[in-house]
């Protein structure tokens, strides 16, 4: 039986590579399903046949544990996101200047996406939120936010550093210091209904192995150790 992973959409590219490596190492097949964390959460609640849930946040895996839908002790932080302000065109001057000059600022929906929440917190801690509020357009998730900037409909946007690394347009990046926002931790849990818990635990261990964590970092994340 293949191990079935439910993975938040922002982690598609890394997980594809990791799954391949796991397969090569152990000979076990892996099936990947993607979706927003909210959808995957609802699906697990209603009996989706997943073994492991790799969320884009910590809250949802915790909620699953609380509802006895996930193994209590299985939760791990497998990746930490890095927030970046990105533009296709060069950005000059201070962060404040850039924000003031922009016409449209893309962020992910703060209510739904950890990157969105982080972006909002950063803006607030920079005391910019109130002045730029009206210029903000929201992507449903971090993928859409990226597309807003990519298509240049928004001149700048708060995206994941991992996206900028993966994308075909590099543009200009300003890294946002991580102390300006709460951590963008991505947690994984083993689903209670899994009929493959042994393998699942094996994969969780694999995921947290230092060499694998290094690989994750190369996609633009901070590792669990940071």
């Amino acid at each position, binding site marked *: 039986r293949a191990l079935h992973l439910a993975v938040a959409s922002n982690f598609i590219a890394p997980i594809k590579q990791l799954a391949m490596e796991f397969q090569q190492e152990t000979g076990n097949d892996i099936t990947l399903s993607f979706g927003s964390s*909210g959808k995957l959460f609802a699906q697990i609640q209603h009996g989706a046949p997943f073994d492991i849930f790799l969320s884009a946040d910590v809250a949802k895996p915790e909620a699953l544990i609380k509802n006895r839908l996930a193994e209590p002790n299985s939760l791990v932080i497998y990746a930490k996101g890095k927030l970046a302000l990105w533009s296709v065109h060069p950005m000059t001057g201070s962060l404040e200047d850039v924000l003031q000059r922009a016409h449209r600022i893309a962020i992910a929906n703060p209510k*739904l996406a950890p990157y969105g929440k982080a972006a909002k917190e950063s803006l607030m801690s920079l005391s910019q939120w109130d002045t730029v509020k009206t210029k903000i357009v929201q992507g*449903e998730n971090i993928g*859409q936010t990226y*597309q*807003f900037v990519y298509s240049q*409909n928004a001149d700048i946007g708060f995206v994941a550093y991992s996206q900028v690394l993966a994308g075909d347009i590099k543009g200009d990046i300003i890294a946002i210091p991580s102390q300006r926002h709460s951590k963008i931790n991505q947690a994984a849990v083993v689903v209670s209904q899994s009929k493959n818990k042994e393998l699942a635990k094996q994969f969780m261990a694999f995921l947290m192995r230092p060499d694998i964590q290094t690989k994750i970092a190369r996609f633009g994340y901070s590792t669990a150790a940071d």
Partner: protein
Amino acid sequence: MLLSPEDLGAIWLTLKLASLVTLLLIVLCTPLAWWLARTQSWLKGPINAIVAMPLVLPPTVLGFYLLLLLGPQGSVGAFLGQIGFSALPFSFAGLVVASMLYSLPFVVQPIQNAFIAIGTKPLEAAATLRSSPWDRFLYVALPLAKPGYISAAILGFAHTVGEFGVVLMIGGNIPYETRVISIQIYDHVEALEYGQAHTLSLLMMAFAFIVLAFLYGNQKRQKHHVVAGGVL
């Protein structure tokens, strides 16, 4: 059942959007449907197919391509910019355009079929009664195509109300401007605020049910004014 001001704003926006889109679509689709119903041109097949094309792509993906096309770098966007239009994405106008594109086939098709069903006889009769092409279109073809228009309005309206992916992409989810009710419900669901999602969904369905039941109830069997005692 308390609705937040944001919910109310979304409802209002949705109604405005759906009504406007339906209205514009009906106006614009009428000549297109007319042409498609009457022409013998080889272009008929291809154009019909193009009309249905937006349906085939997932809405968010369609939205992405629209963003590319309408953005400052996109051919259409650049052109619109040059002739002095403000950018369409992230505006209500953009929502209207995107929704129209996506609901187009549901409005064209019923009207087109209704025009086909009319045939040429009533139009010929009108022509011999000094009715110009325009006049006979207005006073003969349109009234006879009424059932098709009702269908078109219903499908177009309902589809625009529920439409979501394209609107999300093009609209940028700006409260009171582009955040329609479907996005609002979606947000509630994604944020696991299921209670609010249920309330809004129920409200929306109830409203739609009343509107639709009324519209359909009024759609008579126009073709045959009931035959006394007829059995078929």
